[in-house]
């Protein structure tokens, strides 16, 4: 890969003692981890539903269990990161279309029970399966899994809006690209999970979904870096850059392994690489956003440019149109 020149020359701008204008996100690493676990859960739920409908019981089982574990991890991360975790249920007081977090709460509330029931059905011991409750759960597993698969695309994509609908420059300006990075990453990690735990004979769809997801993620990620302008610097420098570079190596490597690998060890190792690539992608994007709040140039330079070019933000004109 050729090292390209930074597209934007060093920015000259004025500031108040070089201090940040924005507050850094109040969120810690758990939110980055949630971005991953939520995506993994959604990818696994889709894979589980497909495996269920096409008669692949092993792939169905590991994917349902994967989506259950990762949605539980997600809920833990989300609640533990609150300043007042015991008040987590205050999220359920309102449904607010203007708040992606409120929308996300309701998307997760719809998704969670489906993924949970399908996962529990796989984990039930034989003795429990024979009781009336066990039989009921077994009966509901398929509709629950399909319900989870139906809501999973929402789970995988809303998190991009969650980050973008903020004043954080690197997240906000990435709004046309982040959803594709995130759903691609969700597919790659869901496929990766299936590759690690399902037998090779059944993991064909997992491999195909992982390869396609990895392709979407890497392509969207590259386009994002090229088109972002000054905010691209937050992605292309420092810790965010290192995380995302390693993510790309692991994701592309894992996808290649998924394409050519036929033996169990190679497929499982490729799946693990895809999972790790997805984790690093989410932490990289998170870090880029945090960095873009620390340096006032990401706020001042683009806004000053708008003003100097005589096109300030106007209320009677939308800034972005699709």
């Amino acid at each position, binding site marked *: 890969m050729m090292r390209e020149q930074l597209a934007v020359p060093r920015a000259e701008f004025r500031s*108040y003692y070089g201090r940040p204008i924005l507050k850094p*996100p109040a969120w810690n690493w758990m939110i980055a981890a949630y971005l991953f676990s939520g995506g993994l859960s959604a990818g696994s739920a889709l894979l589980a539903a497909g495996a269920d409908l096409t008669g692949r019981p092993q792939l169905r089982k590991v994917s349902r269990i994967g989506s259950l574990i990762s949605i539980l991890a997600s809920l833990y991360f989300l609640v533990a990161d609150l300043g007042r975790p015991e008040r987590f249920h205050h999220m359920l007081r309102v449904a607010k279309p*203007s708040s992606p977090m*409120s929308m996300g709460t309701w998307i997760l509330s719809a998704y969670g029970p489906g993924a949970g029931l399908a996962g529990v059905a796989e984990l039930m011991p034989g003795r429990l399966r024979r009781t009336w409750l066990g039989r009921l759960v077994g009966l509901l597993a398929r509709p629950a899994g399909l319900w989870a698969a139906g809501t999973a695309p929402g789970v*995988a994509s809303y998190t991009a*809006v969650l980050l973008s609908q903020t004043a954080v420059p690197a997240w906000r300006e990435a*709004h046309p690209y982040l*959803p594709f990075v995130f759903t691609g990453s969700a597919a790659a990690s869901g496929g990766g999970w299936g590759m690690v735990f399902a037998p090779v004979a059944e993991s064909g769809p997992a491999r*195909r979904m992982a390869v396609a997801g990895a392709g979407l993620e890497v392509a969207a990620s590259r386009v994002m870096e090229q088109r972002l302008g000054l905010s691209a610097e937050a992605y292309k420098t420092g810790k965010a850059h290192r995380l995302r570079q390693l993510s790309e190596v692991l994701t592309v490597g894992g996808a290649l392994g998924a394409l050519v690998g036929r033996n169990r060890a190679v497929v499982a190792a490729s799946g693990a690489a895809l999972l790790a690539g997805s984790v690093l992608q989410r932490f990289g994007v998170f870090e880029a956003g945090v960095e873009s709040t620390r340096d006032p140039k990401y706020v001042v330079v683009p*806004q000053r440019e708008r003003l100097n070019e005589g096109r300030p933000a106007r209320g009677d004109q939308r800034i972005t149109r699709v």
Partner: protein
Amino acid sequence: MRDNSFYGPLEDPAGDAGYSEHPERVGFFTDTSVCIGCKACEVACKEWNMLPDDGFNLLGMSFDNTGMLSANSWRHVAFIEQHEQVDLGMPGFERPGDASGAEARTEFRWLMSSDVCKHCTHAGCLDVCPTGALFRTEFGTVVVQQDICNGCGYCVSGCPYGVIERREGDGRAWKCTMCYDRLHDGLEPACAKACPTDSIQFGPLDELRERASRRVEELHSRGVTEARLYGHDPNDGVGGDGAFFLLLDEPEVYGLPPDPVVPTGDAGAMWRYAGMAASALIGLAVSAFVGRR
């Protein structure tokens, strides 16, 4: 819901929020040209609102040892020392104080400005709050209900001015309430009450806007051509601020964003992209199962 609920000029934010009868929208006009940097506003705010102390810090930034607005500082006086040439202190022939107009100014100037929550017409913090803790008051201001806030932190990233913050050790988000309790009793906010030069003026927003434009004209006619208003325009990226300013330099010099935009303004486009990406994910999953065994 009206068309401009999330973006664009909005005549009556309290009415838009659902109040059928409500008092006039009130706000702050902070005229920094008469600010003397006494920090009475910071102290009055801390005392009235019983805000915790934020440590004894010497920041080395002129007289500013507060640094920025935070969960515990709801007024922040910025101090900016500007000088283009070194003043050699040559003796002059005028008596000190003889000349006081713009013509007598030297190369040195000291800018002071008391910053505060802007109480935006379209408030990013309020829009993204998932619990309804942040709400629009009948006065058109934006306030956090502390018994509802669960400290999710979304408002912190939703504010294009970097005002609201989660309080360490408390976990909830805090910011200026424009002294909601005092407003109920017909009193002006503590900072405006304490300001000895009327740099901080409180009143009905329409009246303040008129007063501010007259003040700018007056300053311009007196040769202070760099005087400008910030946050007064209902047609800007946040629909105009409930607390706006008269500045003597570019906003970024005071630590203010030059052209802020409420994040919600692009929400429609963001969800459309997310919808496309979600569809792409469905396509990926389906094609992984179709055609091959």
